[in-house]
């Protein structure tokens, strides 16, 4: 019986539900690595190169955790969604890095729409490797896509509804693999929710709307996930009180795109960069003063 391991980092946050639906529809057992803890992070730090970005180090930690617990590890490669929608080069390289660092079986597919490598082709290929019949794969793929679209629509609606709330509203700008990771961004989210702030997430907007809007901040931008983020800022600029940028050190697209956004923003913002030895106590002080400042502005 084949078991597929899914590392809970990077790609997981974009495709988690889709993968899970797909595998359960095909009756393939899978395990997901646990929520990031100190041990996993340390494993990642040990495996990785000191200059790699924190998210990639974290990813390697998750892979290291899974390596002897399953037969295959699922590692896609995402290159681009048509020409001007590239991803970060770490997304291009993750598969090759893992393949060279670990001695494991890897299930991989490539998303490169410039060369007509689509998600559909990728998942079909994976189904084939796991000895499933084409008819089963087709059914599972359809089911997963439909479920996924429903879920995304629901998330978009929740996010939009939050914009109408009367509480202090803050837009969190960051990549989902940083925002929702236990050791990277989760503490910040918890702290803000505890302080009764309405949080809006930049990755939960409809990309069809936000990608177009991002041109108002940056005309030349060609990073897909940065486009989502900047577009979200433009979309809700007039309805929110502040923006918090969260990125991992040293994130390549963020270093340029977020800098440009900060230079063009007219509302208060806070830039948080997290590396492998930042402590939450230091962050707490900064968050507190940022909230104080927003509060002060509201009372005026």
């Amino acid at each position, binding site marked *: 019986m084949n078991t597929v391991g899914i590392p809970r980092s990077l790609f997981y946050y974009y495709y988690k539900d889709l993968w899970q639906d797909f595998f359960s529809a095909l009756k393939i057992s899978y395990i997901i690595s646990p929520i990031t803890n100190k041990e996993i992070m340390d494993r990642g730090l040990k495996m*990785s*190169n000191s*200059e*790699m*970005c924190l998210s990639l180090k974290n990813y390697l930690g998750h892979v290291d955790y899974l390596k002897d617990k399953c037969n295959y590890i699922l590692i896609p*490669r995402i*290159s681009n969604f048509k*020409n*001007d929608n*590239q991803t*970060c*080069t*770490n997304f*291009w*390289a993750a*598969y*090759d*890095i893992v*393949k*060279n*660092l670990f001695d494991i079986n890897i299930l991989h597919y*490539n998303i490169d729409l410039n060369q007509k490598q689509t998600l559909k082709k990728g998942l079909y290929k994976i189904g084939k490797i796991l000895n499933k019949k084409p008819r089963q794969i087709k059914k599972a793929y359809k089911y997963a896509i439909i479920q996924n679209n429903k879920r995304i629509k629901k998330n978009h609606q929740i996010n939009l509804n939050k914009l109408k709330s009367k509480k202090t509203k803050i837009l969190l700008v960051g990549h989902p693999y940083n925002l929702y990771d236990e050791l990277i961004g989760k503490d910040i989210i918890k702290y803000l929710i505890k302080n009764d702030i309405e949080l809006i997430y930049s990755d939960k907007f409809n990309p069809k709307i936000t990608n177009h809007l991002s041109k108002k901040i*940056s*005309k*030349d*931008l*060609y*990073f897909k996930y940065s486009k989502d983020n900047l577009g979200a800022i433009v979309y809700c600029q007039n309805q929110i009180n502040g923006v918090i940028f969260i990125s991992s*050190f*040293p*994130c*390549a*697209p963020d*270093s*340029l*795109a977020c*800098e*440009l956004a900060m*230079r*063009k923003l007219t509302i208060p913002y806070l830039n948080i*960069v997290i590396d492998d030895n930042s402590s939450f106590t230091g962050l707490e002080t900064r968050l507190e003063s940022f909230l104080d400042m927003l509060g002060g502005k509201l009372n005026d």
Partner: protein
Amino acid sequence: MTKIAFPQMGDYYIPATYLLSHIFPNDQIIQAPKITSKTIEIGTKYSPEFVCTPFKYTLGTMLECLEKGAEILIQMGGGCRYGYYAELQEKIIQDLGYNCKVINLVTKGETNIKRINKLLKQINPKYSKIKNIYYSFITIKMVKYMDIIDDYIRENIGFEQIEGSFENLKQAMLTEFNQTKNYRHLYKTYKKYLKKFSKLKTHKPDKRLKIGIIGELYTIMEPFSNYYLEKSLAKHHIEIKRFTNVHYLLFEKAKEYKKYQKYAKEYFHYSLGADASDNIARCKYLCESDYDGIIHIKSSFCTPEIGAMPIINKIANEYNKPVLFFSFDSATSQTGIETRLEAFYDMLEMRKDK
């Protein structure tokens, strides 16, 4: 009359100035001052925190050009985040209060002649396409000849008998290249200097050290940003092999990539972005041929090369070849580099003697 400037890289400012001064004869081309430690200081001051170092260098030279009165800056690049530099640099410059325009010839990793024509027409409405094509042709050839001669110099400069003979002859060649009249003239000059170079006396021992340099393209091609690595290697009488040059990037890269992928298919399956996958294949090539060591250089935070580093390390381990990694930053100290280089050089000597 508009004043045009561009950030420089190595000796390539000569063909670039040549091209621009011929397609815009009525405008003034401002030559960027040579990169010094002050350039990088200015660049770092106004750059975002963790951007890669070429951004800081190019921003620094841009600001120095603006001090000289430049009105239009030309920037090009692609592959990684290099292609996105121009927009942010323009914003930074405008925020500093300069009134200038940054023209980005390559956006989104792609470019075509139509777009370049349109952009250049903005600089001067009298711009002519045919002139551009003619002079581009000469410039491309000039770059090619420069690269061929540079390769020759790299192989031999460590063994020159009269100190400085290669350097002086190269300077003479570059000044003559600058006064090129037409293609025939250029070709004649090239042939003349090729002869002169081959006549320069060298003393090449059989037991010489050979080192291959691979790494990130800007750092490799701009000697200041790698702290004159090639020069200090030549002082130790080492033969140097370098793959990356402008001609390679412009014309050969797309063709070579497929070869590289086939050659090193056990180490990478997909492109890692920018020059990273090329470097992996080159590393394998250097390991298999008779080179004694490999030096991998990059600017700090260069994401594609960081991804390639563990793989290069693995290849070097498998073939049992020493590899030295350098990551250059604005805060790197010259002494630190020299110490590491010397240790590396001593180690290679000892291995050779065994």
